[in-house]
């Protein structure tokens, strides 16, 4: 980040198709060298946002600035951005070399310079030796890399990537995520990536923008979005959550005492609540602690360390093996289903819980997120 003016600035951007709002009042600033991911479900307007920046479609209202310049009415060929399309959109009748050289030729560069820069770009994406191939002679991953090379060879101010990895299989996708991230660090070009995959968004980007139904729900570093979701939508979208409903009983600064069913629970929140407010308590599966009632009864030390504010009781429904971890599905006695993630013990690599086990569920104070009740 330069700390100075943003490279891309969207102000009150709206896009309407007929009477349908695709994007509503989007305000977003993206700085030089940032890797920003726009995350959202399909149909949330994330691709539209990219197309507006690239210039394929005009905005209905609002302004887009690129490098301090308003780009309204500027066609795509005159914007210093390049796009990597979801379908790659390689030119099928051209060789890899000609595909990558296309942008430079259109801008009238010298032959020698074109050759040198195309080679550089192909080297960056490890496609040296494939210059003479046609796109249909390449694998999906190779085609994807040609698409990236074809865009970065022009040294754009911003590289727009529209779900570039969605057509690749899992392993290749993981590999390409890292490759793209390293490429971005190396080139220092600003990347704006669009995806519906939260894992992809978190592992690659400096900043995540969560989009829903044409509006920005939250923007911030991945850890902030994950740990302090601004609302239920964001919390649900960026990972599995467990939800408990309660009512504020007492407020002492940051500390809040909640009444959840028959239990008083102490939690922390930097939001302002007053007595009587209805709230959601959000808990990630990995933040929950589960012990069997039998173990707690037999082991007072465990019981003391488990939870001083009391705990919920429930019955194990099933366990789901995940490889390094396993999930325990519990139905609490108040009827609410809960998922908790457990690690295997070092000495015991078997699933500890059995369906039907009576268990206690608690969490470490301060790991929860408190949100005002929605709907």
């Amino acid at each position, binding site marked *: 980040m330069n700390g100075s003016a943003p490279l891309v600035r969207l102000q009150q951007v709206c896009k309407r198709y007929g009477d349908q709002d695709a994007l509503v009042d989007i305000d977003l600033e993206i700085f030089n060298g940032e890797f920003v991911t726009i995350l959202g479900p399909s149909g949330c307007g994330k691709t539209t946002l990219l197309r507006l920046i*690239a210039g*394929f479609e005009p905005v209905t209202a609002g302004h887009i600035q690129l490098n301090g310049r308003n780009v309204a009415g500027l*066609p*795509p*060929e005159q914007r210093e*951005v*390049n*796009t990597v*399309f*979801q*379908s*790659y*959109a*390689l*030119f*099928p*009748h051209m060789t890899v070399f000609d595909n990558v050289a*296309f*942008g430079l030729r*259109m*801008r009238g560069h010298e032959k020698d310079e074109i050759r040198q820069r195309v080679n550089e770009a192909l080297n960056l994406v490890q496609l040296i030796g494939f210059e003479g191939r046609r796109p*249909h002679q390449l694998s999906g991953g190779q085609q994807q890399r040609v698409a990236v090379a*074809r*865009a970065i060879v*022009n040294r754009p101010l911003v590289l727009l990537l529209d779900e570039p990895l969605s057509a690749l299989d899992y392993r290749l996708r993981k590999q390409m995520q890292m490759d793209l991230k390293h490429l971005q660090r190396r080139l220092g070009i600003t990347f704006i990536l669009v995806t519906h995959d939260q894992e992809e968004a978190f592992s690659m980007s400096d900043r995540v923008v969560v989009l829903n139904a044409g509006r920005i729900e939250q923007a911030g570093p991945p850890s902030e979005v994950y740990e302090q979701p601004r609302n239920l939508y964001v919390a649900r979208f960026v990972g599995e959550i467990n939800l408990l409903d309660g009512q504020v009983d007492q407020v002492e600064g940051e500390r809040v005492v909640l009444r959840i069913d028959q239990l008083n629970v102490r939690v922390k929140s930097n939001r302002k609540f007053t007595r009587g407010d209805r709230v959601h308590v959000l808990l990630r599966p990995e933040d929950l602690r589960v012990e069997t009632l039998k173990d707690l009864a037999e082991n007072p030390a465990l019981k003391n360390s488990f939870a001083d504010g009391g705990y919920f009781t429930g019955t194990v429904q099933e366990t789901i093996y995940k490889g390094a971890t396993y999930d325990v599905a519990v139905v609490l006695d108040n009827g609410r289903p809960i998922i908790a993630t457990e690690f295997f013990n070092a000495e015991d690599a078997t699933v500890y819980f059995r369906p039907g086990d009576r268990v206690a569920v608690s969490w470490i104070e301060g790991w929860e997120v408190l949100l005002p009740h929605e709907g």
Partner: protein
Amino acid sequence: MRRYLKFTYAALVYAFLYLPLVVMVVYSFNASRFSMQWKGFTLHWYDALIHDASLIQAALHSLTIAAVSATVACFIGTVTALAIHRWRFVGRKAIHAVLFVMMMSPDIVIGISLLVLFIALSLPLGFWTLLMAHVTLCMPFVAITVHGRLQGFDPHVVEAARDLGAGELEVWRHIMLPMTMPAVLAGWFMSFTLSLDDVIIAFFTTGPTFEVLPLRIYSMVRLGLKPEINALCAAMILITAVAVVTTQWLLKEQK
């Protein structure tokens, strides 16, 4: 056993389709003038063929009409296909539907309707009327072939070109034209064969000043089958086969 049955089945299908042609080609080398009896191998009929000036004249007419009408049809058809693919305008869907109607219409209907039109316009029947008729016949085939090719494109390819700095003109030159070219050429060969084959439309739309080969053959056959005709048809099969194979090859290259 199964394999044997399959083979027999395929052989029967091919025999059904091609036996008449094979018989004709074989008899074009038969040394007998009148009987269907085999009297030995000869190239005499081919020799007679190339020395028959009026037949050669008709053949040249046919090839000229086929080449010119294919070229004109390709031009109009390609522009039509590009227009209905690229832009949304009033009547776009209607044009698309009409192309299919034209393709399906019986030749005799096209032939008679054109004849009526030419008479109404009091155009003398000959080269120009036949050319117009064959362009009408071939244009829908070109338009549909090229349009099909365009539909198969990734729509983002044009956007990608724009994104990389190509203006509207450069998009046409470097992207649209080269990508449609195989379909245009395939359309050309298809038109060429269509025009070369046509008897019915030509029967109505050309005049005595411009005789084409199929009509000439037709009038020759009315006086009885002559071995020259076998030879002539064998030669036409060869030309048609070359055109069809080229078309297939071009369409396959479209990957």
